[in-house]
């Protein structure tokens, strides 16, 4: 009888070893030359986990120079890739996800009890043994902020050209063009060459695409919420600023269309489970402007109603919209000077900001809450197509 000796595979402890001379190749294959599409279907943030497993081995063998070198090369590699793809939403989102994940790993496995509360016993075995990487965590946090800012800049650049036509000019409510102020009909997009008009659907389609990319890449849900709060703030600011400068859109019918468009955006947030982002709250000035266009503007009671409703608009903005307001037809009267004076008198005690327009470039500070992973390092498989065969599992 033939005796077969079954050799037990040595347990993988979730560490990866490599020769120092292969570091450049590692960074090239895993960072600078990596295409996010290659990783579709694998564990989200796989590069971050692989990098952590390499760092952990360098820590395990107590090689501080190897840790320094790998972290520095990784950070420089990420910066290089972001610089090269500074208009690529998918690439930027991919490296934001991975940088944040690496930061979370350095916390989760730091050995600091505050970050270990949700770890399994197995995960606790995968903590760093020799080095405290607090200072590198700060560098990764600063890098994450830079990447987030690049991501927002790209997304805003895509959405901005759509906002005015989609929010203020496009008429999706049937029959509304008949009640547009006379003399201003069909003005939409006449100021730009070619057909640069967009409907709200185009904005929604674009936001769907952003959302899907970020979710697929495993970007932290809290960051995704902040991205949409920021984008909705810009939609609010650009739309309101245009409304405050254009007589032709200060009408009852635009108010009606605007309110409908905002409700579609709110519906979209609900559909994508993004209600808790605070995005709707950033639209409040615009919601009130739409209502102001639709309210009656004649009696002292109307003035009272406007003042109690428009709490997110400044006195200057309310007065400007009333001044620009254009009656739909000859049966509707212009807003009288007396009515505007009544409003001003009622609002004089408010301590409103002096500037008329909103800062459409304003950015909310971003936060990256700690988000430990449920994955255990020894369960991670490295696909052959990453060409990392020089990494040795330990």
């Amino acid at each position, binding site marked *: 009888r033939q005796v077969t000796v079954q050799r037990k595979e040595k347990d993988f402890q979730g560490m990866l070893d490599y020769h120092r001379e292969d570091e450049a190749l590692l960074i090239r294959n895993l960072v600078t030359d990596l295409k996010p599409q290659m990783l579709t279907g694998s564990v989200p943030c796989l590069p971050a986990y692989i990098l952590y497993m390499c760092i952990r081995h360098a820590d395990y063998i107590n090689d501080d120079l190897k840790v320094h070198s790998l972290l520095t090369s990784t950070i420089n590699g990420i*910066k290089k890739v972001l610089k090269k793809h500074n208009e690529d939403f998918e690439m930027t989102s991919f490296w934001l996800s991975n940088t944040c994940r690496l930061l979370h790993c350095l916390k989760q496995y730091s050995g600091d009890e505050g970050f270990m509360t949700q770890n399994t016993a197995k995960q606790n075995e995968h903590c760093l043994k020799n*080095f405290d*990487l607090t200072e*590198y965590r*700060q560098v990764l946090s600063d890098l994450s902020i830079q990447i987030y800012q690049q991501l927002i800049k790209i997304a805003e650049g895509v959405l901005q050209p759509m906002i005015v036509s989609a929010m203020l000019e496009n008429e999706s409510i049937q029959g509304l063009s008949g009640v547009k102020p006379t003399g201003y009909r069909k003005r939409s997009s006449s100021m730009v060459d070619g057909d640069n008009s967009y409907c709200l659907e185009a904005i929604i389609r674009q936001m769907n695409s952003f959302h899907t990319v970020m979710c697929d890449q495993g970007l932290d849900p809290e960051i995704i919420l902040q991205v949409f709060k920021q984008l909705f703030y810009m939609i609010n600011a650009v739309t309101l600023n245009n409304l405050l400068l254009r007589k032709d859109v200060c009408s009852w019918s635009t108010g009606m269309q605007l309110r409908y468009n905002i409700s579609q955006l709110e519906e979209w947030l609900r559909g994508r489970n993004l209600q808790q982002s605070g995005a709707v709250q950033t639209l409040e000035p615009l919601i009130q402007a739409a209502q102001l266009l639709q309210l009656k503007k004649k009696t002292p009671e109307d003035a009272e109603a406007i003042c109690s409703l428009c709490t997110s608009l400044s006195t200057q903005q309310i007065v400007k919209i009333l001044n620009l307001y254009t009656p739909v037809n000859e049966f509707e009267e212009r807003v009288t000077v007396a009515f505007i004076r009544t409003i001003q008198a009622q609002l004089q005690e408010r301590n409103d900001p002096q500037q008329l327009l909103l800062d459409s470039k304003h950015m909310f500070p971003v936060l990256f809450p700690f988000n430990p992973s449920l994955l255990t390092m020894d369960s991670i498989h490295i696909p052959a197509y990453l060409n990392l065969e020089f990494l040795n599992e330990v």
Partner: protein
Amino acid sequence: NSQRPRPRVLLKAPTLAEMEEMNTSEEEESP
């Protein structure tokens, strides 16, 4: 207390801006 893990050694890191500077000067040096 032999049960207690020994404290980890803090690895000093340059700031992101310092890293950028070092990287730029290295690139400038290499032809």
